[in-house]
């Protein structure tokens, strides 16, 4: 494609040039020239941008399933080595403790959602959407599932994080915590002989379908996953209604694995540049507010910062402040691997953990005799660095007429109101996750197409579970860079927080709330214009 792009550019440019040369050298038609030129110069600034990650854009990988998986080309040799170690760590499948031959691999669980990072971020992208076999009424989430449920007990909105309100951290469900671990090691449960490899509870998924009609009469079917929970560990099967997890005040939010490239660049955007876009009270009356999430920052806490709160940047609701916190929380939570930032097992201090430890002879406590966690500091640093330094894929089909038209429509219907095209990352003595940032991510003009802020996207998409200061209808604007390669990376991937949208078009149609006007404007476009807009998004 790279050559194709150039050829097309030269053809396109030559047509323009020919007309301009004629016009430019002939004063009688100068007005026409002005008009032509004016049309061109009013094209949105991102129309012909290819290198979405600046110098940290991938080379020779942006057209295939390798598009999310290459290191930033501007890393130093030493940084590249660290990145590649992190790559190996990312694919490391952990096993039950004790593993005498491979002590470095043991410590999985005891409860978890998957055994390695890659299983939920396949080829560094999105996880596969779980589908049902024909006539199957529901499916059990097992090793194929890159999705899990966050859980918490309803305790009202939290507006301002303080030490008294535990910095707005969500209230754990008694005996479960804030994430439901649906898988386990063989003996995770006291009833393991009947329920081997089951975690805190079984989670099943099925879909509800609805049809949406465009003003032009075209229709499209949408699906929404519904989750049910069975066999909670805390009560007997006959008594399951009494389980803490099945009470009416428990809130659930499904979370799908998302792509992990370009994250260091997003962390290198200054707080000020993001906050400048926030418009909490919609003072410009465009129907779009945009506000930051303020979240607990364990890195600050470990460094004894008196106010361990930072701007939320990662996760579907911007509930983590850094790649470090996001990755290492997933290492401890999603896989059950303790690490220096999160040294306690995910289910520490619950009845399940106490039963597990006593039944299995305290061999998998999360720490060894010297107090070392299951993942070392070096392992943790490498895997974090890996996720910070994966390159952003370049665009495709930029000079396709439809894509060019779609780029303009994307702005005209104000998708850019939230999907902010560009930033310039910070320079100087900046940190990511509490450590000095690599030069590769500094001072780059990037095009993530996200304002990194929270927006109310309406009831249709709501999870009705707050997350720090984000409410139950708010989501962080997803970066759109690389989105067109999603299915090259994983053909079974879906979009949105629970993978409900099979296509970009379906994802657009789920937008509501602050995005209602843009969605209506999209739906009112002619079919060919809608396709142009989608083609533009797919070129990213």
């Amino acid at each position, binding site marked *: 494609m790279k050559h194709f792009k150039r050829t097309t550019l030269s053809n396109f440019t030559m047509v323009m040039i020919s007309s301009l040369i004629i016009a430019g050298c002939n004063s009688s038609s100068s007005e026409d020239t002005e008009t032509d030129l004016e049309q061109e110069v009013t094209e949105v600034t991102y129309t012909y941008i290819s290198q979405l990650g600046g110098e940290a854009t991938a080379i020779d990988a942006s057209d295939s399933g390798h598009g999310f998986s290459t290191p930033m080309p501007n890393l130093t040799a030493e940084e590249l080595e660290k990145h590649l170690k992190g790559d190996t760590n990312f694919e490391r499948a952990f096993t039950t403790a004790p593993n005498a031959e491979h002590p470095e691999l043991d410590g999985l669980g005891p409860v978890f959602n998957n055994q390695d990072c890659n299983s939920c971020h396949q080829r560094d992208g999105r996880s596969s959407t779980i589908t049902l076999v024909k006539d199957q009424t529901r499916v059990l989430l097992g090793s194929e599932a890159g999705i899990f449920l966050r859980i918490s007990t309803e305790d009202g909105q939290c507006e301002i994080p303080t030490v008294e309100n535990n910095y707005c951290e969500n209230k754990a469900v008694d005996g479960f915590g804030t994430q439901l671990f649906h898988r386990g090691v063989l003996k995770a449960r006291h009833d393991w002989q009947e329920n081997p490899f089951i975690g805190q509870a079984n989670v099943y998924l099925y879909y509800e379908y609805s049809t949406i009609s465009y003003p032009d009469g075209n229709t499209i079917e949408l699906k929404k996953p519904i989750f049910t929970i069975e066999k909670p560990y805390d009560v007997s099967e006959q008594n399951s209604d009494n389980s803490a997890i099945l009470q009416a005040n428990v809130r659930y939010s499904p979370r799908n694995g998302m792509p992990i490239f370009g994250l260091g660049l997003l962390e290198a955007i200054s707080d000020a540049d993001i906050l400048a876009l926030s418009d909490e009270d919609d003072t410009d009356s465009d129907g779009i507010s945009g506000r930051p999430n303020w979240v607990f920052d364990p890195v600050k806490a470990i460094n004894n910062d008196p106010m361990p709160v930072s701007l939320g940047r990662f996760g579907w609701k911007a509930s983590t402040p850094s790649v470090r916190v996001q990755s290492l929380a997933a290492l401890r939570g999603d896989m059950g691997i303790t690490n220096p930032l999160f040294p306690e097992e995910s289910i520490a201090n619950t009845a399940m953990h106490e039963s597990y430890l006593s039944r299995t002879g305290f061999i998998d406590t999360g720490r060894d005799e010297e107090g070392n966690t299951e993942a070392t500091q070096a392992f943790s640093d490498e895997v974090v660095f890996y996720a910070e330094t994966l390159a952003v894929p370049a665009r495709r089909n930029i000079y396709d007429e439809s894509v060019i038209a779609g780029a303009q429509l994307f702005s005209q219907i104000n998708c850019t109101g939230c999907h902010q095209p560009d930033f310039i990352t910070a320079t100087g003595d900046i940190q990511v996750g509490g450590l000095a940032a690599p030069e590769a991510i500094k001072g780059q003009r990037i095009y993530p197409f996200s304002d990194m802020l929270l927006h109310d996207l309406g009831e249709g998409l709501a999870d009705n579970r707050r997350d720090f200061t984000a409410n139950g209808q708010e989501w962080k604007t997803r970066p759109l860079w690389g989105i*067109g390669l999603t299915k090259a990376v994983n053909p079974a991937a879906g979009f949105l927080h629970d993978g409900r949208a099979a296509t970009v078009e379906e994802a657009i149609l789920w937008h509501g709330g602050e995005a209602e006007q843009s969605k209506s404007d999209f739906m009112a476009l002619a079919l060919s214009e809608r396709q142009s807009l989608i083609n533009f998004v797919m070129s990213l």
Partner: protein
Amino acid sequence: MIFKKSLLAAAVSALVLTACGGSSSGGEETNVEPTGFEFTATEMITNLTNDVIVVGYQNLNSAAADFLLALQSLVNTPTEENLLAAQQAWKDVRVPWEQGEAHIFGPVDALSIDPHLDTWPLNTSDLQALLDSQESFNAEELATFNDDVQGFHTMEFLLFGDGVTTNEKHITDMTSLEREYLSAAAEVFKGYTQTLYDAWVVANNPNIENSPAYKELLLTANNDVYASQLGVVEELINGMIGIVDEVGNGKIAEPFGSSIANIDTSKVESQYSWNSLADFTDNIRGVQNVYRGEFLGQSDKSGIIDFVSAADAELATRIDAEIVDAIAAIEAIAGESDLPFRQAINDEEGRVRIQTAIDALSILQTSLENDVLTKLQTWQQ
């Protein structure tokens, strides 16, 4: 957000000035045709998709069926002869699987088939706990177990033993419950190889009837998966690089260690069956299949070699020789005394031969990365 000046407009302005000013230098610069080469990729993509990848998965599925039959015979008639046949059948399934690792993309990944079939290392303690605690096993139940107690290496361990001093296991060393576990695991395995094959030829998502066969996405690039043939060729070349890297820098180098003092036998793939060198050889044979466009011994068909040749015939020949060299170097590791890889890493002369193989793979990887992949930039489709 509308900006007053786009890059294109800037370029146009400059050209207008050039054209009217009569200066030729800028104009010439713009009119320079990019240097490049032409290659029509349709035949190559069609051949690699249908006759290398899909046929490879068909072979895998068929070998898995034979393997399941062999295990069912072993369950029904537990004799030494049937055990030997089952061990051989395991090695036979290994061939198309390892060769297919030269193109790990699409359904094998999207449907989690790779971890289901080939998770390593396995979890011997959980496996033993299951055998100690359960009275029977069936495929439906076993499919819900974690990946590290199913797939190739779990079955390998049960079929061949721990591999430390020998890869020979006798029927008397095997319980009937182990045979039942094996048979159930082979049935689950066969289900996945069928799913994988169907995903390529029927529907890439088995649960969505109208999802296109994955092969169609390669054959008719310009879809939501591959925006162009360039994406397909890029996928194939990066797939070759991926496995050459894994064999050289992972599968061989990690257990090999930097010296004989820090070898790690526990990291040897297929260490129970002593099939490691066959695995590695088949990995690079898989690269050869994609590069040449045909399986060993078949008549010449279109492969990546033809793409490279269109750009640089000498390079195309050199890469082919480097692949042949790498395969020969891996095969030579066994030496005259036919050492398995897990013993060769602990043998001074064996280590010299292993280093030769690592070097050959490194040369090949560098060529593929620096000389072949970069040809995509000058390919005029």
